[in-house]
Protein backbone atom coordinates (compact mmCIF):
# COMPACT_ATOMS: atom_id res chain seq x y z
CA UNK A 1 0.00 0.00 0.00
CA UNK A 2 1.70 3.19 -1.18
CA UNK A 3 0.73 6.79 -1.69
CA UNK A 4 3.15 8.45 -4.08
CA UNK A 5 3.40 12.18 -4.66
CA UNK A 6 5.77 13.10 -7.44
CA UNK A 7 6.92 16.72 -7.74
CA UNK A 8 3.52 18.09 -6.79
CA UNK A 9 3.21 21.88 -7.05
CA UNK A 10 0.45 24.43 -6.68
CA UNK A 11 0.64 28.17 -7.11
CA UNK A 12 -2.01 30.82 -6.31
CA UNK A 13 -1.26 33.98 -8.30
CA UNK A 14 2.13 35.10 -6.86
CA UNK A 15 2.23 32.64 -3.96
CA UNK A 16 3.64 29.13 -4.28
CA UNK A 17 1.46 27.14 -1.90
CA UNK A 18 3.09 23.77 -2.53
CA UNK A 19 6.52 23.62 -4.07
CA UNK A 20 7.58 20.41 -5.86
CA UNK A 21 6.84 17.96 -3.08
CA UNK A 22 7.81 14.36 -3.70
CA UNK A 23 6.84 11.86 -1.05
CA UNK A 24 6.04 8.18 -0.65
CA UNK A 25 3.86 7.13 2.27
CA UNK A 26 3.07 3.58 3.40
CA UNK A 27 0.94 2.17 6.25
CA UNK A 28 1.21 4.09 9.47
CA UNK A 29 0.40 7.47 10.96
CA UNK A 30 2.12 10.41 9.29
CA UNK A 31 1.95 13.65 11.19
CA UNK A 32 2.10 16.79 9.07
CA UNK A 33 3.19 19.86 10.98
CA UNK A 34 3.37 23.40 9.76
CA UNK A 35 2.27 26.85 10.72
CA UNK A 36 -0.76 28.53 9.18
CA UNK A 37 -0.21 29.17 5.47
CA UNK A 38 2.58 26.56 5.18
CA UNK A 39 0.60 24.70 2.47
CA UNK A 40 -0.71 21.73 4.51
CA UNK A 41 -4.36 22.16 3.51
CA UNK A 42 -3.47 22.75 -0.15
CA UNK A 43 -1.36 19.59 -0.17
CA UNK A 44 -4.16 17.59 1.45
CA UNK A 45 -6.76 18.89 -0.99
CA UNK A 46 -4.55 17.76 -3.85
CA UNK A 47 -4.24 14.33 -2.23
CA UNK A 48 -8.05 14.17 -2.07
CA UNK A 49 -8.55 15.07 -5.72
CA UNK A 50 -10.53 18.23 -4.99
CA UNK A 51 -7.72 20.52 -6.12
CA UNK A 52 -5.70 19.81 -9.24
CA UNK A 53 -1.93 20.33 -8.94
CA UNK A 54 -0.31 22.70 -11.43
CA UNK A 55 2.27 19.99 -11.97
CA UNK A 56 3.17 16.58 -10.59
CA UNK A 57 1.19 13.43 -9.97
CA UNK A 58 -0.51 11.72 -7.04
CA UNK A 59 -1.14 7.97 -7.13
CA UNK A 60 -2.32 5.39 -4.64
CA UNK A 61 -1.36 1.81 -5.48
CA UNK A 62 -1.10 2.82 -9.12
CA UNK A 63 -4.48 4.61 -9.19
CA UNK A 64 -4.41 8.26 -10.20
CA UNK A 65 -6.01 10.77 -7.84
CA UNK A 66 -8.56 11.70 -10.53
CA UNK A 67 -10.00 8.16 -10.67
CA UNK A 68 -13.16 7.09 -8.88
CA UNK A 69 -11.32 3.97 -7.66
CA UNK A 70 -8.76 6.17 -5.86
CA UNK A 71 -11.51 8.09 -4.06
CA UNK A 72 -13.22 4.81 -3.09
CA UNK A 73 -10.26 4.14 -0.79
CA UNK A 74 -10.15 7.65 0.58
CA UNK A 75 -11.42 9.02 3.89
CA UNK A 76 -11.18 12.78 4.30
CA UNK A 77 -11.92 15.17 7.11
CA UNK A 78 -11.45 18.74 5.89
CA UNK A 79 -10.31 21.47 8.23
CA UNK A 80 -13.49 23.52 7.82
CA UNK A 81 -15.98 20.80 7.06
CA UNK A 82 -19.60 21.70 6.37
CA UNK A 83 -22.78 19.86 7.25
CA UNK A 84 -26.49 19.94 6.51
CA UNK A 85 -28.27 21.54 9.48
CA UNK A 86 -31.62 19.87 8.70
CA UNK A 87 -30.12 16.36 8.52
CA UNK A 88 -29.88 14.08 11.53
CA UNK A 89 -26.48 12.55 12.34
CA UNK A 90 -27.67 9.17 11.02
CA UNK A 91 -28.99 10.70 7.79
CA UNK A 92 -25.75 12.63 7.30
CA UNK A 93 -23.69 9.45 7.56
CA UNK A 94 -26.02 7.46 5.30
CA UNK A 95 -25.93 10.23 2.70
CA UNK A 96 -22.14 10.32 2.74
CA UNK A 97 -22.04 6.51 2.66
CA UNK A 98 -24.04 6.52 -0.59
CA UNK A 99 -21.68 9.19 -1.88
CA UNK A 100 -18.75 6.91 -1.10
CA UNK A 101 -20.41 4.00 -2.92
CA UNK A 102 -21.31 1.91 0.13
CA UNK A 103 -24.40 -0.32 -0.35
CA UNK A 104 -27.48 0.69 1.65
CA UNK A 105 -27.54 -2.17 4.15
CA UNK A 106 -23.84 -1.91 4.90
CA UNK A 107 -24.15 1.86 5.19
CA UNK A 108 -26.86 1.54 7.83
CA UNK A 109 -24.78 -0.87 9.87
CA UNK A 110 -21.58 1.12 9.46
CA UNK A 111 -23.29 4.38 10.43
CA UNK A 112 -24.56 2.82 13.68
CA UNK A 113 -21.11 1.44 14.49
CA UNK A 114 -19.38 4.75 13.86
CA UNK A 115 -21.94 6.78 15.80
CA UNK A 116 -21.26 4.48 18.73
CA UNK A 117 -17.50 4.85 18.21
CA UNK A 118 -17.69 8.65 18.40
CA UNK A 119 -20.27 8.54 21.24
CA UNK A 120 -23.12 10.03 19.23
CA UNK A 121 -25.51 7.05 19.28
CA UNK A 122 -27.93 8.72 21.67
CA UNK A 123 -28.26 11.77 19.40
CA UNK A 124 -28.29 9.86 16.10
CA UNK A 125 -31.82 11.08 15.26
CA UNK A 126 -31.23 14.67 16.31
CA UNK A 127 -30.64 17.40 13.76
CA UNK A 128 -27.01 18.44 13.33
CA UNK A 129 -27.93 22.09 13.86
CA UNK A 130 -28.50 21.24 17.55
CA UNK A 131 -24.96 19.81 17.95
CA UNK A 132 -22.05 21.50 19.75
CA UNK A 133 -18.75 22.15 17.91
CA UNK A 134 -17.15 19.06 19.44
CA UNK A 135 -20.09 16.84 18.44
CA UNK A 136 -19.90 18.11 14.88
CA UNK A 137 -16.17 17.40 14.78
CA UNK A 138 -16.78 13.84 16.04
CA UNK A 139 -19.41 13.40 13.35
CA UNK A 140 -16.83 14.60 10.83
CA UNK A 141 -14.38 11.98 12.06
CA UNK A 142 -17.10 9.31 11.77
CA UNK A 143 -17.87 10.21 8.15
CA UNK A 144 -14.20 9.95 7.23
CA UNK A 145 -14.17 6.34 8.45
CA UNK A 146 -17.35 5.20 6.69
CA UNK A 147 -15.66 3.29 3.88
CA UNK A 148 -12.89 1.73 6.03
CA UNK A 149 -10.42 3.90 4.12
CA UNK A 150 -6.99 2.66 3.18
CA UNK A 151 -5.97 6.28 2.86
CA UNK A 152 -7.18 8.56 5.63
CA UNK A 153 -6.49 12.27 5.38
CA UNK A 154 -7.32 14.37 8.41
CA UNK A 155 -6.88 18.12 8.35
CA UNK A 156 -6.72 19.54 11.88
CA UNK A 157 -8.97 16.76 13.22
CA UNK A 158 -8.67 17.60 16.91
CA UNK A 159 -9.93 21.18 16.58
CA UNK A 160 -12.94 21.61 18.87
CA UNK A 161 -12.40 18.38 20.81
CA UNK A 162 -12.11 18.48 24.59
CA UNK A 163 -8.99 16.92 26.28
CA UNK A 164 -10.73 13.59 26.93
CA UNK A 165 -11.94 13.33 23.34
CA UNK A 166 -8.44 14.19 22.08
CA UNK A 167 -6.93 11.29 23.96
CA UNK A 168 -9.55 8.86 22.68
CA UNK A 169 -9.10 10.20 19.17
CA UNK A 170 -5.33 9.70 19.29
CA UNK A 171 -5.71 6.09 20.30
CA UNK A 172 -8.25 5.57 17.49
CA UNK A 173 -5.81 7.02 14.95
CA UNK A 174 -3.02 4.81 16.26
CA UNK A 175 -5.22 1.75 15.69
CA UNK A 176 -6.24 2.87 12.21
CA UNK A 177 -2.61 3.48 11.26
CA UNK A 178 -1.83 -0.24 11.58
CA UNK A 179 -3.76 -1.12 8.40
CA UNK A 180 -3.95 2.11 6.49
CA UNK A 181 -2.08 5.25 5.56
CA UNK A 182 -3.09 8.07 7.88
CA UNK A 183 -1.96 11.58 7.10
CA UNK A 184 -2.84 13.94 9.90
CA UNK A 185 -2.14 17.64 9.74
CA UNK A 186 -1.95 19.84 12.80
CA UNK A 187 0.00 22.64 14.34
CA UNK A 188 -0.39 21.12 17.80
CA UNK A 189 2.71 19.00 18.25
CA UNK A 190 1.30 16.95 21.14
CA UNK A 191 -1.40 15.59 18.80
CA UNK A 192 1.15 13.56 16.89
CA UNK A 193 4.40 13.25 18.82
CA UNK A 194 3.48 9.95 20.49
CA UNK A 195 1.47 8.31 17.74
CA UNK A 196 3.11 9.35 14.45
CA UNK A 197 5.33 6.80 12.77
CA UNK A 198 6.71 9.58 10.65
CA UNK A 199 6.80 13.35 11.07
CA UNK A 200 6.58 15.74 8.13
CA UNK A 201 7.18 19.44 8.55
CA UNK A 202 6.17 22.01 5.93
CA UNK A 203 7.30 25.59 5.63
CA UNK A 204 6.37 27.98 2.81
CA UNK A 205 5.16 25.18 0.59
CA UNK A 206 8.20 23.00 1.00
CA UNK A 207 8.79 19.84 2.95
CA UNK A 208 11.62 20.74 5.30
CA UNK A 209 11.64 17.60 7.41
CA UNK A 210 10.61 14.02 6.87
CA UNK A 211 11.48 11.13 9.13
CA UNK A 212 10.83 9.16 12.27
CA UNK A 213 11.02 11.01 15.56
CA UNK A 214 12.19 9.55 18.85
CA UNK A 215 13.16 11.03 22.16
CA UNK A 216 16.88 10.73 21.39
CA UNK A 217 16.42 13.54 18.88
CA UNK A 218 15.18 15.87 21.61
CA UNK A 219 11.89 17.66 22.02
CA UNK A 220 9.77 17.70 18.84
CA UNK A 221 8.04 20.94 19.77
CA UNK A 222 11.37 22.76 20.17
CA UNK A 223 12.59 21.37 16.87
CA UNK A 224 9.34 22.32 15.12
CA UNK A 225 9.40 25.87 16.47
CA UNK A 226 13.04 26.27 15.52
CA UNK A 227 12.47 25.00 11.99
CA UNK A 228 9.27 26.85 11.23
CA UNK A 229 10.43 30.20 12.56
CA UNK A 230 13.84 30.02 10.89
CA UNK A 231 14.22 32.44 7.99
Amino acid at each position, binding site marked *: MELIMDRVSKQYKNKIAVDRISLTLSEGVHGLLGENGAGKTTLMRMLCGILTPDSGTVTFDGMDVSEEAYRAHLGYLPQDFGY*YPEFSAADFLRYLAA*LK*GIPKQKAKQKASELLALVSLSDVARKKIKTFSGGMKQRLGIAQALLNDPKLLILDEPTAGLDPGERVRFRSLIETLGKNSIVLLSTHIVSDIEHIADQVLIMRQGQLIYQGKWDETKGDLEDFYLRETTAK
Partner: protein
Amino acid sequence: MEYLSTLYRYELKKITGKKIFWITLFLSLLVVATIPLLPLTGKSYVDGEVTDTHYHMFRVDQAHERALSGRAIDQALLSETVSAYEKIPDPEGRYTLTEEYQACARPYAAVFQLISRWFDQPVLKDILALEVTEESFYEARLAFLEEEWQGQFLTEREKAFWLQKEAEISTPYLYYYHEGYTMLLKSFNTLCVLIPLFAAICLPGVFAEEHTRRTDQLILSGAKGKTTVYLAKISAGVTVSLASCALMVLASAILALGIYGTDGFAMQLQATPYPFSHPLTIGAACLIMCGISLILSVFIGIFVMVLSECLQNGIAAMSVTVALILIALLGKVPAQHRVLSQLFCWLPFSFLNIRNVFDLRTLPVFGHCLLSWQIVPVLYLLSCALLAAAGRRVYQRYQVSGR
Protein backbone atom coordinates in the same frame (compact mmCIF):
# COMPACT_ATOMS: atom_id res chain seq x y z
CA MET B 1 -28.35 2.92 -9.81
CA GLU B 2 -28.73 2.07 -6.10
CA TYR B 3 -26.47 4.96 -5.16
CA LEU B 4 -28.23 7.29 -7.56
CA SER B 5 -31.64 6.62 -6.00
CA THR B 6 -30.28 7.08 -2.46
CA LEU B 7 -28.43 10.26 -3.35
CA TYR B 8 -31.50 11.51 -5.26
CA ARG B 9 -33.68 11.04 -2.16
CA TYR B 10 -31.22 12.98 -0.02
CA GLU B 11 -30.96 15.77 -2.59
CA LEU B 12 -34.76 16.04 -2.57
CA LYS B 13 -34.64 16.18 1.21
CA LYS B 14 -32.11 19.03 1.08
CA ILE B 15 -34.41 21.10 -1.17
CA THR B 16 -37.70 20.34 0.55
CA GLY B 17 -36.21 20.53 4.05
CA LYS B 18 -36.00 24.30 3.84
CA LYS B 19 -38.77 26.60 5.06
CA ILE B 20 -38.34 28.86 2.02
CA PHE B 21 -39.44 25.98 -0.24
CA TRP B 22 -42.78 25.54 1.54
CA ILE B 23 -43.37 29.28 1.89
CA THR B 24 -42.73 29.83 -1.84
CA LEU B 25 -44.97 26.90 -2.78
CA PHE B 26 -47.78 28.12 -0.53
CA LEU B 27 -47.59 31.69 -1.86
CA SER B 28 -47.43 30.47 -5.48
CA LEU B 29 -50.58 28.38 -5.00
CA LEU B 30 -52.26 31.32 -3.29
CA VAL B 31 -51.54 33.55 -6.29
CA VAL B 32 -52.72 30.79 -8.65
CA ALA B 33 -55.98 30.56 -6.70
CA THR B 34 -56.69 34.28 -6.95
CA ILE B 35 -56.69 34.31 -10.78
CA PRO B 36 -60.03 32.53 -11.32
CA LEU B 37 -61.52 33.77 -8.04
CA LEU B 38 -60.77 37.46 -8.41
CA PRO B 39 -63.22 38.22 -11.28
CA LEU B 40 -66.05 36.80 -9.16
CA THR B 41 -65.45 39.05 -6.20
CA GLY B 42 -66.66 42.61 -5.98
CA LYS B 43 -69.72 44.47 -7.16
CA SER B 44 -70.82 46.44 -10.17
CA TYR B 45 -71.58 50.13 -9.59
CA VAL B 46 -73.46 52.70 -11.70
CA ASP B 47 -73.45 56.30 -10.46
CA GLY B 48 -72.26 55.11 -7.06
CA GLU B 49 -75.11 52.62 -6.68
CA VAL B 50 -74.60 48.87 -6.55
CA THR B 51 -76.37 47.29 -9.50
CA ASP B 52 -75.22 43.70 -9.15
CA THR B 53 -72.50 41.44 -7.76
CA HIS B 54 -69.88 40.09 -10.14
CA TYR B 55 -70.73 36.56 -9.08
CA HIS B 56 -74.42 37.01 -9.96
CA MET B 57 -73.52 38.62 -13.28
CA PHE B 58 -71.28 35.61 -14.04
CA ARG B 59 -74.07 33.16 -13.18
CA VAL B 60 -76.52 34.99 -15.46
CA ASP B 61 -74.08 35.17 -18.38
CA GLN B 62 -73.09 31.54 -17.82
CA ALA B 63 -76.75 30.47 -18.08
CA HIS B 64 -77.21 32.48 -21.27
CA GLU B 65 -74.03 31.13 -22.85
CA ARG B 66 -74.92 27.56 -21.91
CA ALA B 67 -78.28 28.09 -23.61
CA LEU B 68 -76.41 28.91 -26.84
CA SER B 69 -74.07 25.91 -26.53
CA GLY B 70 -74.08 23.56 -29.47
CA ARG B 71 -75.59 26.10 -31.87
CA ALA B 72 -73.90 26.92 -35.14
CA ILE B 73 -72.88 30.54 -35.63
CA ASP B 74 -74.93 30.73 -38.80
CA GLN B 75 -77.34 33.11 -40.47
CA ALA B 76 -80.13 32.22 -38.03
CA LEU B 77 -78.09 32.85 -34.86
CA LEU B 78 -76.53 36.04 -36.24
CA SER B 79 -79.97 37.37 -37.23
CA GLU B 80 -81.38 36.52 -33.80
CA THR B 81 -78.48 38.33 -32.18
CA VAL B 82 -78.83 41.47 -34.29
CA SER B 83 -82.64 41.49 -33.85
CA ALA B 84 -82.23 41.17 -30.09
CA TYR B 85 -79.80 44.09 -29.96
CA GLU B 86 -82.06 46.18 -32.21
CA LYS B 87 -84.67 46.08 -29.44
CA ILE B 88 -82.46 48.30 -27.27
CA PRO B 89 -84.17 51.71 -27.32
CA ASP B 90 -81.10 53.95 -27.14
CA PRO B 91 -78.01 52.22 -28.59
CA GLU B 92 -75.87 55.30 -27.87
CA GLY B 93 -76.63 55.44 -24.16
CA ARG B 94 -75.74 53.11 -21.30
CA TYR B 95 -77.80 50.36 -22.86
CA THR B 96 -76.69 47.52 -20.56
CA LEU B 97 -78.90 49.04 -17.85
CA THR B 98 -82.04 48.80 -19.96
CA GLU B 99 -84.63 46.08 -19.45
CA GLU B 100 -84.58 45.35 -23.18
CA TYR B 101 -80.87 44.56 -23.02
CA GLN B 102 -81.24 42.37 -19.96
CA ALA B 103 -84.27 40.52 -21.30
CA CYS B 104 -83.53 40.26 -25.02
CA ALA B 105 -79.93 41.12 -25.92
CA ARG B 106 -77.89 39.78 -23.02
CA PRO B 107 -78.59 36.12 -23.88
CA TYR B 108 -76.75 36.77 -27.19
CA ALA B 109 -73.85 38.79 -25.72
CA ALA B 110 -71.28 36.08 -26.50
CA VAL B 111 -72.16 36.05 -30.21
CA PHE B 112 -72.41 39.82 -30.25
CA GLN B 113 -68.88 40.03 -28.85
CA LEU B 114 -67.63 37.98 -31.81
CA ILE B 115 -69.47 40.24 -34.28
CA SER B 116 -67.96 43.32 -32.63
CA ARG B 117 -64.49 41.74 -32.71
CA TRP B 118 -64.47 40.48 -36.29
CA PHE B 119 -66.09 43.58 -37.77
CA ASP B 120 -63.73 45.64 -35.61
CA GLN B 121 -66.62 47.83 -34.44
CA PRO B 122 -66.72 48.50 -30.71
CA VAL B 123 -69.78 50.80 -30.78
CA LEU B 124 -73.27 49.26 -30.77
CA LYS B 125 -74.80 51.90 -33.04
CA ASP B 126 -72.13 51.22 -35.69
CA ILE B 127 -72.64 47.48 -35.45
CA LEU B 128 -76.37 47.80 -35.91
CA ALA B 129 -75.71 49.86 -39.03
CA LEU B 130 -73.85 46.90 -40.56
CA GLU B 131 -75.45 44.20 -42.62
CA VAL B 132 -74.46 41.14 -40.61
CA THR B 133 -74.96 37.96 -42.59
CA GLU B 134 -73.27 34.59 -42.24
CA GLU B 135 -71.17 35.34 -45.32
CA SER B 136 -70.14 38.84 -44.21
CA PHE B 137 -69.40 37.56 -40.69
CA TYR B 138 -66.88 34.98 -41.88
CA GLU B 139 -65.48 37.39 -44.47
CA ALA B 140 -65.01 39.95 -41.69
CA ARG B 141 -63.16 37.33 -39.65
CA LEU B 142 -60.80 36.68 -42.55
CA ALA B 143 -60.25 40.42 -43.06
CA PHE B 144 -59.54 40.76 -39.34
CA LEU B 145 -57.00 37.94 -39.55
CA GLU B 146 -55.33 39.45 -42.62
CA GLU B 147 -54.90 42.70 -40.72
CA GLU B 148 -53.40 40.76 -37.82
CA TRP B 149 -51.03 38.99 -40.23
CA GLN B 150 -49.97 42.34 -41.63
CA GLY B 151 -49.25 43.65 -38.15
CA GLN B 152 -47.14 40.58 -37.39
CA PHE B 153 -45.12 41.01 -40.62
CA LEU B 154 -46.00 37.54 -41.87
CA THR B 155 -44.38 36.42 -45.12
CA GLU B 156 -46.45 35.54 -48.18
CA ARG B 157 -45.69 31.86 -47.57
CA GLU B 158 -46.97 32.15 -44.00
CA LYS B 159 -50.12 33.92 -45.13
CA ALA B 160 -50.75 31.15 -47.65
CA PHE B 161 -50.08 28.59 -44.92
CA TRP B 162 -52.64 30.11 -42.58
CA LEU B 163 -55.20 30.55 -45.37
CA GLN B 164 -54.86 26.84 -46.02
CA LYS B 165 -55.37 26.12 -42.30
CA GLU B 166 -58.45 28.35 -42.29
CA ALA B 167 -59.86 26.38 -45.19
CA GLU B 168 -59.50 23.15 -43.19
CA ILE B 169 -62.12 24.30 -40.69
CA SER B 170 -65.62 24.24 -42.10
CA THR B 171 -68.03 27.06 -41.37
CA PRO B 172 -70.33 27.82 -39.66
CA TYR B 173 -68.45 27.26 -36.39
CA LEU B 174 -70.26 25.70 -33.49
CA TYR B 175 -70.52 27.80 -30.37
CA TYR B 176 -70.06 26.28 -26.91
CA TYR B 177 -69.88 27.83 -23.49
CA HIS B 178 -66.12 27.71 -22.76
CA GLU B 179 -65.39 30.12 -19.90
CA GLY B 180 -63.52 27.47 -17.87
CA TYR B 181 -60.95 27.00 -20.62
CA THR B 182 -60.65 30.74 -21.29
CA MET B 183 -59.92 31.27 -17.60
CA LEU B 184 -57.38 28.44 -17.62
CA LEU B 185 -55.62 29.98 -20.64
CA LYS B 186 -55.48 33.32 -18.78
CA SER B 187 -53.92 31.58 -15.75
CA PHE B 188 -50.89 30.66 -17.84
CA ASN B 189 -49.90 34.36 -18.00
CA THR B 190 -49.43 34.21 -14.22
CA LEU B 191 -47.75 30.80 -14.35
CA CYS B 192 -45.29 32.27 -16.86
CA VAL B 193 -43.93 34.38 -13.97
CA LEU B 194 -44.54 31.97 -11.08
CA ILE B 195 -42.73 28.94 -12.56
CA PRO B 196 -39.36 30.71 -13.07
CA LEU B 197 -39.78 32.65 -9.82
CA PHE B 198 -40.25 29.41 -7.90
CA ALA B 199 -37.13 27.94 -9.52
CA ALA B 200 -35.17 31.16 -8.88
CA ILE B 201 -35.96 30.98 -5.16
CA CYS B 202 -35.79 27.24 -4.46
CA LEU B 203 -33.15 25.84 -6.80
CA PRO B 204 -29.98 27.99 -6.75
CA GLY B 205 -28.99 26.35 -3.47
CA VAL B 206 -28.78 22.87 -5.01
CA PHE B 207 -25.21 23.52 -6.13
CA ALA B 208 -24.21 26.90 -4.73
CA GLU B 209 -24.97 26.05 -1.10
CA GLU B 210 -22.52 23.15 -1.19
CA HIS B 211 -19.81 25.74 -1.83
CA THR B 212 -21.00 28.25 0.77
CA ARG B 213 -21.54 25.51 3.39
CA ARG B 214 -18.20 23.95 2.47
CA THR B 215 -19.76 20.54 2.06
CA ASP B 216 -18.32 20.50 -1.46
CA GLN B 217 -15.07 19.08 -0.06
CA LEU B 218 -16.85 16.04 1.35
CA ILE B 219 -18.89 15.55 -1.80
CA LEU B 220 -16.12 15.91 -4.35
CA SER B 221 -13.73 13.66 -2.42
CA GLY B 222 -16.33 10.86 -2.37
CA ALA B 223 -16.16 8.06 -4.93
CA LYS B 224 -19.50 9.06 -6.51
CA GLY B 225 -19.04 12.77 -5.80
CA LYS B 226 -18.07 13.91 -9.29
CA THR B 227 -20.40 11.77 -11.34
CA THR B 228 -23.50 10.29 -9.67
CA VAL B 229 -24.01 13.25 -7.31
CA TYR B 230 -24.31 15.64 -10.25
CA LEU B 231 -26.98 13.47 -11.82
CA ALA B 232 -28.77 13.12 -8.48
CA LYS B 233 -28.72 16.87 -7.92
CA ILE B 234 -29.97 17.73 -11.41
CA SER B 235 -32.68 15.03 -11.20
CA ALA B 236 -33.84 16.23 -7.77
CA GLY B 237 -33.92 19.87 -8.90
CA VAL B 238 -35.84 18.97 -12.06
CA THR B 239 -38.28 16.87 -10.02
CA VAL B 240 -38.97 19.78 -7.68
CA SER B 241 -39.40 22.25 -10.55
CA LEU B 242 -41.60 19.83 -12.49
CA ALA B 243 -43.71 18.82 -9.49
CA SER B 244 -44.28 22.41 -8.37
CA CYS B 245 -45.25 23.37 -11.92
CA ALA B 246 -47.60 20.38 -12.18
CA LEU B 247 -49.16 21.38 -8.86
CA MET B 248 -49.68 24.97 -9.99
CA VAL B 249 -51.14 23.88 -13.35
CA LEU B 250 -53.37 21.35 -11.60
CA ALA B 251 -54.56 23.94 -9.09
CA SER B 252 -55.28 26.39 -11.93
CA ALA B 253 -57.18 23.73 -13.88
CA ILE B 254 -59.20 22.51 -10.89
CA LEU B 255 -60.18 26.04 -9.88
CA ALA B 256 -60.86 27.35 -13.41
CA LEU B 257 -62.84 24.31 -14.54
CA GLY B 258 -64.39 23.74 -11.12
CA ILE B 259 -65.75 27.27 -10.85
CA TYR B 260 -66.47 28.09 -14.48
CA GLY B 261 -67.41 24.63 -15.75
CA THR B 262 -65.78 21.99 -17.89
CA ASP B 263 -68.07 22.44 -20.92
CA GLY B 264 -66.67 23.65 -24.21
CA PHE B 265 -63.60 21.42 -24.56
CA ALA B 266 -64.47 20.68 -28.20
CA MET B 267 -64.99 24.28 -29.30
CA GLN B 268 -62.75 25.37 -32.18
CA LEU B 269 -60.19 28.06 -31.33
CA GLN B 270 -61.58 29.96 -34.34
CA ALA B 271 -64.89 30.49 -32.55
CA THR B 272 -63.13 32.35 -29.72
CA PRO B 273 -62.10 35.99 -29.92
CA TYR B 274 -58.44 34.89 -30.34
CA PRO B 275 -57.06 35.58 -33.84
CA PHE B 276 -55.82 32.03 -34.35
CA SER B 277 -56.15 29.79 -37.36
CA HIS B 278 -54.70 26.66 -35.77
CA PRO B 279 -56.97 23.67 -36.39
CA LEU B 280 -57.30 23.01 -32.66
CA THR B 281 -60.04 22.97 -30.08
CA ILE B 282 -59.80 25.21 -27.01
CA GLY B 283 -59.43 22.08 -24.85
CA ALA B 284 -56.49 20.88 -26.96
CA ALA B 285 -54.95 24.35 -26.70
CA CYS B 286 -55.18 24.09 -22.89
CA LEU B 287 -53.54 20.65 -22.92
CA ILE B 288 -50.73 21.98 -25.14
CA MET B 289 -50.20 24.87 -22.73
CA CYS B 290 -50.03 22.40 -19.82
CA GLY B 291 -47.43 20.30 -21.63
CA ILE B 292 -45.36 23.35 -22.53
CA SER B 293 -45.50 24.57 -18.90
CA LEU B 294 -44.00 21.28 -17.76
CA ILE B 295 -41.25 21.35 -20.40
CA LEU B 296 -40.44 24.97 -19.52
CA SER B 297 -40.26 24.11 -15.82
CA VAL B 298 -37.66 21.45 -16.61
CA PHE B 299 -35.61 23.86 -18.73
CA ILE B 300 -35.81 26.71 -16.22
CA GLY B 301 -34.95 24.36 -13.35
CA ILE B 302 -31.81 23.16 -15.12
CA PHE B 303 -30.96 26.73 -16.20
CA VAL B 304 -31.11 28.06 -12.63
CA MET B 305 -29.09 25.15 -11.20
CA VAL B 306 -26.37 25.32 -13.86
CA LEU B 307 -26.22 29.12 -13.51
CA SER B 308 -25.74 28.79 -9.75
CA GLU B 309 -22.90 26.31 -10.29
CA CYS B 310 -21.24 28.59 -12.86
CA LEU B 311 -21.56 31.65 -10.61
CA GLN B 312 -20.94 29.60 -7.43
CA ASN B 313 -23.37 31.91 -5.73
CA GLY B 314 -27.06 31.27 -5.11
CA ILE B 315 -28.00 34.93 -4.64
CA ALA B 316 -26.31 35.90 -7.91
CA ALA B 317 -28.15 33.12 -9.77
CA MET B 318 -31.44 34.22 -8.22
CA SER B 319 -30.79 37.86 -9.16
CA VAL B 320 -29.98 37.00 -12.78
CA THR B 321 -33.13 34.86 -13.08
CA VAL B 322 -35.37 37.54 -11.53
CA ALA B 323 -33.83 40.14 -13.85
CA LEU B 324 -34.65 37.92 -16.84
CA ILE B 325 -38.23 37.48 -15.58
CA LEU B 326 -38.61 41.27 -15.30
CA ILE B 327 -37.13 41.87 -18.76
CA ALA B 328 -39.58 39.34 -20.23
CA LEU B 329 -42.46 40.87 -18.27
CA LEU B 330 -41.79 44.52 -18.99
CA GLY B 331 -39.83 44.42 -22.23
CA LYS B 332 -41.20 44.27 -25.74
CA VAL B 333 -39.53 44.07 -29.11
CA PRO B 334 -41.55 45.81 -31.88
CA ALA B 335 -43.03 43.39 -34.43
CA GLN B 336 -41.21 45.06 -37.32
CA HIS B 337 -37.96 43.59 -36.01
CA ARG B 338 -39.36 40.25 -37.02
CA VAL B 339 -36.54 37.89 -35.97
CA LEU B 340 -35.70 39.68 -32.71
CA SER B 341 -39.35 39.99 -31.78
CA GLN B 342 -40.00 36.31 -32.48
CA LEU B 343 -36.93 35.26 -30.47
CA PHE B 344 -38.04 37.46 -27.57
CA CYS B 345 -41.43 35.73 -27.55
CA TRP B 346 -39.67 32.36 -27.52
CA LEU B 347 -37.63 33.18 -24.41
CA PRO B 348 -38.40 30.74 -21.60
CA PHE B 349 -39.50 33.60 -19.37
CA SER B 350 -42.03 34.98 -21.88
CA PHE B 351 -43.08 31.98 -23.96
CA LEU B 352 -45.86 30.69 -21.69
CA ASN B 353 -48.54 32.99 -23.03
CA ILE B 354 -51.26 31.89 -25.44
CA ARG B 355 -50.26 34.58 -27.97
CA ASN B 356 -46.64 33.36 -27.98
CA VAL B 357 -47.37 29.64 -27.90
CA PHE B 358 -49.85 29.96 -30.79
CA ASP B 359 -47.81 32.68 -32.51
CA LEU B 360 -48.83 33.18 -36.13
CA ARG B 361 -45.17 33.68 -37.05
CA THR B 362 -43.63 30.38 -38.02
CA LEU B 363 -40.14 28.98 -38.41
CA PRO B 364 -39.51 28.22 -42.08
CA VAL B 365 -37.45 25.03 -42.45
CA PHE B 366 -36.93 23.44 -45.89
CA GLY B 367 -40.14 24.89 -47.23
CA HIS B 368 -42.22 23.89 -44.21
CA CYS B 369 -43.72 26.32 -41.73
CA LEU B 370 -42.98 24.99 -38.24
CA LEU B 371 -45.28 26.35 -35.54
CA SER B 372 -44.03 27.79 -32.24
CA TRP B 373 -45.91 25.30 -30.09
CA GLN B 374 -44.37 22.45 -32.07
CA ILE B 375 -40.75 23.57 -32.44
CA VAL B 376 -40.01 25.63 -29.31
CA PRO B 377 -40.64 22.80 -26.79
CA VAL B 378 -38.33 20.55 -28.85
CA LEU B 379 -35.65 23.26 -28.79
CA TYR B 380 -36.04 23.56 -25.03
CA LEU B 381 -35.71 19.82 -24.52
CA LEU B 382 -32.51 19.81 -26.61
CA SER B 383 -31.24 22.83 -24.68
CA CYS B 384 -31.92 20.97 -21.42
CA ALA B 385 -29.51 18.22 -22.48
CA LEU B 386 -26.88 20.73 -23.63
CA LEU B 387 -27.18 22.84 -20.48
CA ALA B 388 -26.98 19.79 -18.22
CA ALA B 389 -23.88 18.56 -20.07
CA ALA B 390 -22.23 22.00 -19.80
CA GLY B 391 -23.10 22.16 -16.10
CA ARG B 392 -21.56 18.73 -15.54
CA ARG B 393 -18.32 19.93 -17.06
CA VAL B 394 -18.26 23.02 -14.80
CA TYR B 395 -19.14 20.89 -11.74
CA GLN B 396 -16.45 18.32 -12.39
CA ARG B 397 -13.80 20.96 -12.98
CA TYR B 398 -14.55 22.81 -9.75
CA GLN B 399 -11.48 23.34 -7.59
CA VAL B 400 -11.73 23.67 -3.82
CA SER B 401 -9.24 26.43 -3.17
CA GLY B 402 -8.83 29.62 -1.16
CA ARG B 403 -10.94 30.08 2.00
